[in-house]
């Protein structure tokens, strides 16, 4: 009986032969990171295109004149307030997500459930706020491929329809580009938030089901947490480029 293992069949255990994870990270987590990096490229491309358009056009809409209502409280004259509330909600839900991950490290199932519920609530509130904002803009005449002056033929009527949204010169093209890019980018972000809520709900169900308790690790909460923070990260940039600048 020859018990010598051939060179090829030996269990690899050296640091350079696959026996050790060089990054000390679990495979799924690395893949989540790489997915997020590629997703960051998509969002970057969107936002850079928006910036390039804004830079190229001789004039651009004034964000403070487009976003100036607080639904149910003030119809106009309050720029940034509503989006400020949305930003706060998303940052807050990001914090509860970290707290859920932290509770997972300590194997506290009840805490994970509690914080996941808060995170999901925050996500739903955010998407709700965005729906209200979209509805508001849609009522004003902004939508994919249209702005408040779409369909008007009279030059004066066009100027009249667009003048509330400009501080400088008025441009039909600029308003249209803004409208398209706003709905595309916030729509793509809102889609990400919705997917995030769905993933959070799945994770919550698995937690309640003791899946992670039995597995001995709450690593899955961490991976979904990475995604959720990324959504928050994108919003930080969307907020700056659409609402502040």
């Amino acid at each position, binding site marked *: 009986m020859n018990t010598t293992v051939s060179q090829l069949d030996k269990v690899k255990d050296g640091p350079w032969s696959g026996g050790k994870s060089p*990054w*000390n990270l679990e495979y799924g987590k690395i893949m989540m990171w790489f997915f997020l990096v590629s997703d960051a490229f998509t969002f970057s491309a969107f936002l*850079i295109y928006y910036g390039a358009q804004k830079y190229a056009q001789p004039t651009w809409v004034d964000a403070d004149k487009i976003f100036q209502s607080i639904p149910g409280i003030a119809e106009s004259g309050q720029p940034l307030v509503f989006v400020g509330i949305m*930003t706060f909600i998303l940052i807050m839900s990001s914090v509860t997500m970290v707290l859920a991950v932290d509770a997972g490290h300590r194997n506290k199932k009840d805490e994970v459930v509690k914080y996941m519920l808060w995170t999901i609530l925050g996500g739903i509130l955010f998407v709700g706020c965005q729906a209200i904002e979209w509805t508001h803009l849609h009522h004003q005449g902004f939508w994919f491929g249209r702005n408040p002056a779409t369909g008007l033929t009279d030059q004066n009527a066009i*100027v009249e329809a667009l003048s509330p949204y400009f501080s400088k010169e*008025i441009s039909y093209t600029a308003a249209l580009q803004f409208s398209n890019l706003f709905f595309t980018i916030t729509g793509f972000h809102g889609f990400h938030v919705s997917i995030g809520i769905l993933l959070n709900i799945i994770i919550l169900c698995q937690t309640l089901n003791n899946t992670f308790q039995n597995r001995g690790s709450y690593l899955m909460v961490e991976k979904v947490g990475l995604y959720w923070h990324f959504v928050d990260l994108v919003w*930080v940039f969307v907020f700056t480029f659409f609402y502040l600048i």
Partner: protein
Amino acid sequence: MSNHHDHIAHDTHEHEGMDKKGIWKVFFILLALTGLEFLIALGFVHHWGILHKGTFLNIIYIALTLVKAYYIVAYFMHLKFEKSGFILSVCIVFVFIIYFIVLMLIEGGYLHDHFTHQPIFPHK
């Protein structure tokens, strides 16, 4: 097999990079930075009219945004506590994004000149 267990044990140990206090600290930093953005936008620009929208203000906003992004990625996404090799592999690709920004700004500047000379405003 023992190697594998070592790895897991090490993993859980490494995650002690942030406790509850640390999490709330990062939250308050993010809140303060957002608050500062609001102070500039609503206070200095709208209310008192000390600053005006322009390149200078845009640079401040973008700088504040990047600081916020740093805190989210480093602490909430835990990247600061990963191995340096991993941090590098995730971050280095954003060189292309910087290149793309420069490229699109040059392109935008070129278009800007031409749009200004041949305005396409307002048409149906």
